């Protein structure tokens, strides 16, 4: 059931004053950002926000960071460590949150809620993930280990993606075509400087550059090159997890394993931050608001198929906003696996010409905790470039969730 809209009852607005991100480095030991710790990725951006906006950091009240694998150097509230290393001042409080792949957008939403409710005036929110240094899964999880939580209830996301494809009849060719288009769009956007406005090069202590551009884009990807790749989840699925999916999705005779490295999001390192505040603080700091965060929503979905969340989350956020699909100029949906945006577009009847116009995580990678903030930033930059008004960013989330946020340019 969809909620009713209360949007006009709230007077206070939350504005995005600035949006920055690091380039995404390949998330392997050979990747260009693997020398850089997640704390350093975050402080790079904190420093950039300060410099770009000539920011009086004493007015920044809180730092909200989304980060998924909170272990090792990403453990123990990495947001607070980054705050301490930022020279913003001891007053800066910080919190790290985990809503799996939605963490970066969840951080933005929570910041917006605090601003809109009057609890805070100025917050920096976003996310970070160094997948080369803190590998996915090393934080452990009851979901996969504890029999009560796992037995018949857990399958890896790749198997879920293949299950969606099987259920709705997407072929290997369908998902590969989407993979190619993500690469072409990302490569075109990169060449034409569409990302330059927000990208902050990551540099070492001497000022030498580690990385200035997204590292994993492959401009020469074709259907033919993708056709040579072996499905990534076939072996583990057939050996272990497919049966769990089939026992719930009984119409599935056999799962068609079609996702692979070329049509799924890449593992990368990266961080993204936004400066969010109310109207008064912007005036006080002499900053011009770029967009307002209209409203956001999260929703839980069936946890085995897991990745269909963007659809009900979008329906929910539109209902909360009192808007329709046609009111949205641009969509950003995280390309966790190609089938996720494909199913999203088909189900909600959205044309691909306004979805992920500059490519997505298949080309540029998905730094788990940071992606939500990154794609919202990409949407904002693109609204400005095309001189359009409204964008919606959404992500599928592990465990069966969806998140969606709407922004509107001033």
């Amino acid at each position, binding site marked *: 059931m969809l909620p009713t809209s209360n949007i006009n009852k709230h007077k206070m607005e939350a504005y995005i004053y600035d949006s920055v991100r690091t380039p995404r480095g390949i998330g392997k030991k050979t990747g260009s950002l693997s020398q850089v710790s997640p704390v350093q990725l975050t402080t790079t951006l904190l420093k950039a926000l300060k410099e770009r906006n000539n920011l009086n950091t004493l007015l920044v009240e809180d730092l909200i960071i989304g980060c998924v694998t909170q272990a090792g150097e990403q453990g123990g509230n990495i947001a607070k460590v980054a705050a301490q290393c930022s020279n913003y001042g001891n007053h800066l409080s910080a919190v790290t949150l985990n809503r799996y792949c939605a963490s970066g957008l969840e951080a933005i939403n929570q910041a917006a809620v605090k601003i809109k409710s009057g609890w805070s005036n100025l917050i920096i929110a976003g996310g970070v993930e160094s997948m080369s240094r803190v590998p996915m899964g090393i934080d452990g999880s009851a979901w996969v*280990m504890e029999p009560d939580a796992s037995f018949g209830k857990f399958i890896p996301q790749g198997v879920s993606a293949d299950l969606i494809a099987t259920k709705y009849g997407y072929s290997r060719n369908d998902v590969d075509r989407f993979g190619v288009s993500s690469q072409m769009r990302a490569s075109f956007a990169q060449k034409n400087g569409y990302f330059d406005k927000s990208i902050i090069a990551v540099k070492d202590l001497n000022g030498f550059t580690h990385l200035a551009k997204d590292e994993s884009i492959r401009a020469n990807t074709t259907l033919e090159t993708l056709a040579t790749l072996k499905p990534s989840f076939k072996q583990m699925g057939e050996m272990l997890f497919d049966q769990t999916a089939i026992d719930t999705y009984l119409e599935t005779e056999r799962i068609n394993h079609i996702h692979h490295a070329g049509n799924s999001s890449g593992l990368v390192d990266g961080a993204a931050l936004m400066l969010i505040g109310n109207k008064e603080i912007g005036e006080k700091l002499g900053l011009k608001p770029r967009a307002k965060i209209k409203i956001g929503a999260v929703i839980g979905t069936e946890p085995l198929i897991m990745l269909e969340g963007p659809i009900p989350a979008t329906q929910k956020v539109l209902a909360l906003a009192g808007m329709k699909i046609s009111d949205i100029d641009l969509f950003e949906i995280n390309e966790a696996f190609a089938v996720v945006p494909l199913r999203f577009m088909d189900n909600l009847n959205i044309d691909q010409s306004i979805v992920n116009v500059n490519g997505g995580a298949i080309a540029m990678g998905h730094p788990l905790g940071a992606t939500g903030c990154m794609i919202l930033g990409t949407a904002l930059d693109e609204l400005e470039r095309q001189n359009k008004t409204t964008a919606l960013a959404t992500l599928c989330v592990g465990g069966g969730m969806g998140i969606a946020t709407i922004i509107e340019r001033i």
Partner: protein
Amino acid sequence: MNTQHIKYRVDTDGIAFVTWDMQNSSVNIMNESTMNTFVGFTKQAIEDKNVKGIVINSAKNDFISGGDLKWFLNYNKTKQECFEMLMQTHKNLRLLETCKKPVVAAINGMALGGGCEVALACHHRIMTNHPKNKIGLVECSVGLFPGAGGTQRFLRMLGTKKTIQFITQSKKMSAEDALKNGLINDVCSPEENITELAKQWILTKGTYEQPWDNKNYKLEGTPVGIGQISGVNEFYSISNAMAFKTTHGNLPHIKNVLSVIYHGASCNIDNALEIEARYFVDTLFSKETKNIIRSSFIFIEDAAKGKSKPAGFEKVSFKTIGVLGAGMMGAGIAYVNAKSGLNVVLKDITLGKAEQGKNYIKKQELFKLKKGFTTQEIIDNLLDKIKVSESAADLKDCDLIIEAVFENEKLKNSVTKETEAIISENVIYTTNTSTIPISTLAKASSKPDKFIGLHFFSPVEKMPLVEIIVGKKTSNETLAAAINYVTQIRKIPIVVNDGRGFFTSRVFGKFVNEGITMLTEGIPPAVIENVAKKIGMPVGPLAVSDEVNLKLMLAVMYEDPTLTSHEIQLKNTISEIVKIHGRTGKKEGKGFYDYPVDEKKSIWKKWLTIYPVQSSYNEEKIGRRLLFSMVIDAYKCLDSGVIKEPKDADVGSILGLGFPIHTGGVMSYIDYIGGNEFVAYSLQLEKEFGERFKLPESLINRVKNAGNKRVFYKN
């Protein structure tokens, strides 16, 4: 000092010997009484200041063979009492391992289940390396798991991975393997005096601290801490998925033992033992575990011992068996006979055909040799036992004949006559048929009292069940001898009276029929197959039909004058499927499934247009229709005397049909669902789908009379 079950003495060197020697039993079994005596003596040894160390050993050929499953099945106390009993055992074994005197297990033979658990609570284990000796925690194979601390001690000795693997799969280890894995500390040869070695260890080494009682002890692979670094996250995830894949969540003891290992790994030994007890109580009180203990263990064990043999007949044993027909079945039958040490004359119409049958056996054995499971010498001995022949005259010295020629009445009759002319008066003549009534075939025999059916299942060397089919004129003496024979070749007999399809084929036919009927109603074929597997059947009805072949099924139906109106309708449907759509089965590569070369089979896409799919379906109803159709027909077998006792139906259904073990079999299923629920649901199915779900009056009365109690069996 001695009691009925355990002897106790202290020698002049101050070594106490606690010796298991259960009275009136060839093996040592753990139950309340033996355990109490055992604990009493260990306490005495602990308290006796003159005792320096304790040796636990056995006066039998084996050490301790495990717990008393009948006692578990009939356990009638409360959950609380059960928990306290388990905790008392934990306390006693903890007392033993923390008593500050060295305790040694002298494992002279099998140490399984509880026997292994007692050994694990000792400080040192020596085992005799006789090839037949095995040690292991095998409780999962009977629906339980180790409840005397085995899960936690094994875990702390071998780590998480091996523990999950060995315990959930009930794996046993030889002495050498156990030593390699660190489950025991030393091995000795069968010629050595193991008790003396145990004593010498106490006198020369004699340490008395369990690894887990050392404050520096760390268990590798605990679920707490950094997952991927030790692989624990993945490992548990894989174990859970693997266990779910094989059980579909139908066996609570498997999920419970995974929980015990998972939760126990993060605790100290005392808390871990408490966790084991908590989950053990839940498991023991589950319907599924009782069903598995009753049917898959006690009933099958009884059947394997030939307990259905009529009273008053001497045990007969057999030396030379004549097998007629060296096809797939004949060769398989010859194989199992030779493996059990019997001589076989394998006869076919030509020597070449008989040789072909023998070659099949040779091929299987060479494959085993390649895998290291046998030796050339064993193979040579085995093959020497099988004499191929093309002449009936070679059968003259056989003391039992098994005819396994094609399912053709005329052929079978002529073979009967030809053979009876050669064999001596008192030789039993058996026929391996799955469809033709024995009384009909017996008409060709001059000695119908010596004529009996033996229905082997394919592949014979793997399938343990044999249906013994008693014809109208078969004598009790012949039946008794046939039961002796089947147990001699280590197969499990059930006795069935003559009737169309006997028991297993007839009942299984209902499962296949129901599956095909559902397809024609528009239930998606994948759903039918998946639900069948999810409720615990090994294969779906449509896949089975493809194996059997629709043409064969039709032929059987055409010859059956007793078809119900539903079956006549189904016959017409199947006939259409064969004639119009050209779908028959796997042999032709075109059945309910397609069988592409080099690819996995897949359901034929066109079914969805031939039988348009219903918009919705009820999973529970699909599962119940599949099982109820078998259960009701099995009950009719019981009602009409095809089957004598409910337990024969349970054993036959589990071993012959792959009926889900957690239900206890076709008869136990009624109580698994609950008698009243079974009657009510059958009524609902009858209303919706017709008279095939109508229950016989006698079953309704049985359920009524049972009231709140079980309909079949006390426990």
